């Protein structure tokens, strides 16, 4: 049989990116900043959001979409700190959230009654980096109990992020972790990263984070 070649040249992520563009338009239309939190498992995404909801949900209307491979445990943890429905996406094995899941979850969120949207991605420092969710910015978390060289080992997550949040600063006295080296490696792969230092335990440990969130809210309102 004769074989013919069909020229395709279609990006594999084209459909996801098209859906992500639609999400970006929906968010821009309502002026809602959306932050996509990515990190290794255990870096402290849920703990950061728990404290953020507890401290800010009376001031700002915060919506959350949280992804996990199995269980709704994170959604249950977060729901204790907000009156709003936390959207749980169980990926059933997939190692990342995709734009279709976010578009579907957004259908259940009243964006007109929302000031800020968090997307808590699946704990994984490789795959979520590749999937555009239509977010305003990716926030990558790195805890001081991890290796300082994570930015070099997993450069995509750090290259595609706008912000690096170092977490668990309260543990610094107990672990051999150099903040200077970690930040240096991160800026080596992405010189434009904004770096924030946080602890959910220390007093004032989230002041930099809250300052960053307020700036996001003001920027979007001014736009």
């Amino acid at each position, binding site marked *: 049989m*004769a074989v013919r070649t069909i020229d395709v040249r279609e*990006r*594999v992520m084209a459909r996801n990116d098209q859906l992500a563009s639609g999400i970006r338009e929906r968010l821009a239309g309502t002026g809602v900043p959306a932050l996509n939190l990515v990190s290794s498992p255990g870096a402290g995404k849920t703990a950061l959001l728990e404290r953020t909801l507890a401290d800010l949900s009376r001031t700002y209307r915060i919506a959350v979409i949280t992804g996990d491979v199995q269980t709704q445990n994170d959604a249950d943890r977060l729901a204790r700190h907000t009156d709003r429905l936390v959207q749980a996406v169980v990926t059933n094995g997939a190692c990342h959230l995709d734009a279709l899941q976010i578009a579907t979850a957004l259908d259940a969120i009243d964006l007109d009654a929302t000031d800020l949207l968090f997307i808590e991605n699946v704990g994984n420092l490789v795959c979520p980096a590749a999937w555009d969710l239509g977010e305003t910015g990716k926030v990558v978390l790195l805890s001081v109990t991890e290796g300082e060289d994570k930015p070099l080992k997993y450069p995509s997550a750090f290259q595609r992020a706008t912000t690096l949040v170092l977490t668990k600063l309260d543990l610094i006295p107990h672990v051999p972790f150099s903040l200077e080296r970690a930040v240096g490696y991160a800026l080596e792969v992405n010189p434009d990263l904004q770096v924030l230092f946080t602890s959910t335990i220390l007093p004032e440990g989230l002041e930099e984070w809250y300052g960053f969130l307020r700036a996001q809210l003001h920027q979007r309102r001014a736009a």
Partner: protein
Amino acid sequence: MHEMSIALEVCRIAEEQVGTDTLPAVRAVGLEVGEQAGIEIGSLVFCLETLLGAPPFTGAAPVIERCPGDVLRVSYLEVEDGRPDD
């Protein structure tokens, strides 16, 4: 880790290009995969061989071309056109 999602999307693109009825005639699927695309090639090939080896496909071969950057795209399909060779 996300290679199966990528492989499924490759199969969807193939179907979109040639239509469901023609999928059994696909002999090869050409892909460009960048060095920075975050793809483990062995895993992607395994996932593609698994999917392309089962109906509606009939054993199309994945052909991977490595390239610089983070490009990840389906570059071509080879399809038997049903006519005998000249």
